[in-house]
């Protein structure tokens, strides 16, 4: 792989300029923010935005916790992207819809349980059942997807399964819209204790966000155990490393790939129902943006790298949450929260410009190493 020492062509100069510009903007914004916190009403702040207020600790930690909880969900979804890319070398564009399926089925189940009274009377049982059903449905979706749309394309140039996955994504989105009706559907009301704040150290965390973080951590733990300590996990790692050699070692590659999809799907399903609980509603488009952001998170952390995927998710979630207040507003951008989604993409572009292999390095299979 060639590595350019210094910029020589116009494109190189432009890219260097972009890197410098983005870094400068971020730094400047952060510095302006800090100055504003320490000395509100300083001349710079007045010049840029006289209405800006200081960020209180409550608001700040609220943003941090929001960012982390969303980031945790991005991380869970990112695991699926990362695993599939590590093993098969293509982006499963439809993985975001697997997440949406989890959220949708969670909505259906929880509403049914609510009608049956279980949701209110015995919430823990209800939530467990709902999570289980979500996991089953999203895993099923992922497995069917692999069998029908991707397996026949094994070995094709990698843009082809990507395009197929766009078709699958479209299909699932619109299946939901047509079968279940378009528009937003709500989850039933959460019990009070989930909507109150829980104090942990200096943080006051909203119950449901704490739930998200805890469940995400448990899922990561379960995944770690599966991948590092079980035979199945070892097979997954072997296939991710080199499919051909793995099959020569006696590993059933097809089955392992199905398992990879299933595990990724399960993680996304968990993220789905967590999302539904956190935001209270779901539409057929719920999977689209988080899906792309989760893929970005996987890239940011280093594609193929599971720990990196979660780290990337948390990073992306926090950046998305904090950047509007910490960088954009001090720079004078009005309506900064509207650009939250744009932040996620900008982080992706920035990482690809500066360190394309991601924060923690890629882990690709032998066939896909560029």
């Amino acid at each position, binding site marked *: 792989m060639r590595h350019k020492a210094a910029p020589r062509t116009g494109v190189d100069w432009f890219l260097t300029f972009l890197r410098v510009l983005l870094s400068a903007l971020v730094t400047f914004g952060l510095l302006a923010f800090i100055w504003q916190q320490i000395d509100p009403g300083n001349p710079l702040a007045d010049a840029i935005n006289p209405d800006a207020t200081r960020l209180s600790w409550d608001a700040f930690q609220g943003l941090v916790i929001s960012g982390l909880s969303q980031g945790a969900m991005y991380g869970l979804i990112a695991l699926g992207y990362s695993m599939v890319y590590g093993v098969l070398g293509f982006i499963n564009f439809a993985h975001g819809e697997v997440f949406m399926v989890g959220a949708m089925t969670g909505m259906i189940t929880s509403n049914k349980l609510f009608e049956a009274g279980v949701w209110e009377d015995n919430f823990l049982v209800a939530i467990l059942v709902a999570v289980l059903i979500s996991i089953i449905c999203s895993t099923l979706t992922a497995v069917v997807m692999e069998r029908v749309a991707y397996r026949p394309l094994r070995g094709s140039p990698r843009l082809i399964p990507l395009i197929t996955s766009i078709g699958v994504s479209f299909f699932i989105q*619109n299946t939901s819209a047509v079968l279940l009706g378009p528009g937003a559907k709500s989850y039933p009301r959460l019990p009070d204790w989930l909507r109150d704040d829980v104090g942990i150290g200096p943080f006051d965390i909203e119950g449901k966000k704490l739930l998200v973080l805890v469940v995400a951590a448990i899922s990561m733990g379960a995944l770690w155990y599966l991948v590092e300590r079980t035979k199945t996990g070892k097979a997954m790692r072997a296939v991710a490393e080199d499919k051909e050699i793995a099959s020569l070692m006696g590993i059933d590659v097809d089955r392992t790939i199905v398992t990879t999809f299933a595990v990724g799907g399960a993680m996304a399903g968990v993220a789905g129902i967590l999302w539904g609980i956190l935001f209270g509603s779901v539409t057929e488009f719920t999977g689209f943006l988080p899906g792309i952001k989760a893929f970005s998170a996987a890239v940011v952390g280093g594609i193929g790298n599971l720990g990196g995927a979660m780290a990337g998710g948390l990073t992306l979630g926090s950046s998305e949450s904090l950047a509007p207040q910490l960088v954009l507003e001090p720079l004078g951008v009005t309506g900064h929260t509207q650009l939250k989604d744009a932040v996620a993409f900008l982080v992706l572009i920035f990482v690809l410009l500066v360190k394309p292999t991601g924060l923690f390095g890629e882990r690709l299979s032998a066939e896909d190493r560029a």
Partner: protein
Amino acid sequence: MSETMNPTSEMAPARGALDQDWRKVVNWGLILALALIFVSLTDMPEKLDKRIIVEPLLSMGYLSLVWIPIALGNIVTREVVLEGMTQHKKGARELVAGLVVGAIGGLGLALLIWLLDTRDLSDPLVNWNDALLEVLTFGEGVGYGVLFWILVSAGLGAIGGAIHLLPKLATRLLLAISLTIVLAAALESALDDISEGFRLEWLFEALFEKKGGLSVQGAIILAVFATAWVLFLGGQASKGKAIVQAKREETPVAVNAIGLTLIAAGAILLPMFLGRLTNDLLTNVGLFLLLALGLNIVVGLAGILDLGYVAFFAVGGYTAAIMTSPSSPGLSPALPWWVAIFIVVFMAIVAGLFIGAPVIRMRGDYLAIVTLGFGEIIRLTVRSDWASGFTGGAQGILSIPGADIFGVVTVKGTDPQQVLYLVMAFVAIAIYVSWRLENSRIGRAWMAVREDESVAEAMGINTVNSKLQAFVVGAILASFSGAIFAAKVGSVFESSFKILVSIVILVIVIVGGMGRIAGVAAGALVLVGILGGPNQPGLLAEFSEFKLLIYGALLIWMMLKRPEGLIPNVRRSRELHQEEFLQDAWLKGQADDDDDGEATNGKVAPA
């Protein structure tokens, strides 16, 4: 399977009716059941029932169910014959297989009917209602419905299997007849317009019923016509084509000139005979065709998957809006449209370079996602309050005057015919540009980059510049479309520039065949014209709910079966069917063998 590969071995006798791969049959039966249930639950049978194909026999709604058992009955009995395998004659076995598959499918549908009657699953399945039950049972009750579908589905499955028993000619006839009838029914309102314009109402009335749909006699007439075409006229047509081809080799300039004049004449005269609605529809088709031709250069020729292509559409639209609308916030020079076009081109080049430069060195799939991100960033920025000083934010820009062409005529959205002419002019430009570039040094460089980027570099091609050029040309074509769109609608809102648009354009390019202009045109016509664009209804407005679902399914199907699209570019076909192509070439004796060289007769002259 290549038709040139006729197994020289004799065909084995037909297998017994009960000599089945039962597992395969049952599997496909279950798949059929799921498919029928799925289609029913989407409510297609009910919603599409109003579109009659042949009155009173068949409506589009029932067609949506009926084609599936036939198709699957056919698939289950397909025999993949490779060299060395014995091929069996087709017989009762195929019929029985189709029958069983159909029966199982029918059972599934029967189950659904029974459930519809006895249970209420309308939460969460929104289409779970009596209307659906009515349609499925023809209003005659559950018993009737159950019996009907089991028998009919079995029968249709058997028919699907029976297709294998027919000689090739019969299959072609059946296909031609069904296609003609369905197409005619689908294009009913367009045909109505055209017949009015050309004073051929009598023909229209002979074919169609007053209240919609073909009449039985109309269907028969069309069937006869289709048969005549396949049997006689088709042969004549290809002879004629060959004659024209030969003439073309002799006097290319004259033939091409005549051909172009004919096409131009047709293009100019046609809108005058079509009604407002049809013209409007064709305008939409044209706008998407323009976008698709641009993306065709980026994806089809240079091999760059740009999922954020709608960004350039937006750049064109917003630039035109800002430059021409007197009420555009911030900058408002209120230039005439034809002057603004130059600025639009400039902005497109800037945008193309700005978006292209960072992504040009990335892996193909990363590039796809990042361009998607760029498209979204642009849309979000344009919508935000921050940029609204320029772009009007969520309120958009209004009061865009029509397209002022050199001060001579102003094309307004209120006159669909004029707009259609404008669109056709730009489409012609785009086709010309694509054609010329494809057969030039630039086009060859693009194709080489698409084939093997590092080797292309080793052959002296600056791949970065090459790819950027493709990006910029694609951007310019898209921005043309955006500028016309802005003038036609009279306003621009960010909601017209969602990712959905990029994906629909991609579907058109892929389904139509990447790299081939005729294919892309066919794709745009069929998809946007008949089913509808992302925000616009097509000729068959009732498909609005389902069109995206169909697009998704189409994309998956195309990638699995023929990644190069319905009318493939010969070149791309080779890429993806290399094995088959090589076999064909070998069999036809055109493949290369080494004893060919007359250069040296085996003797070597020393250095």
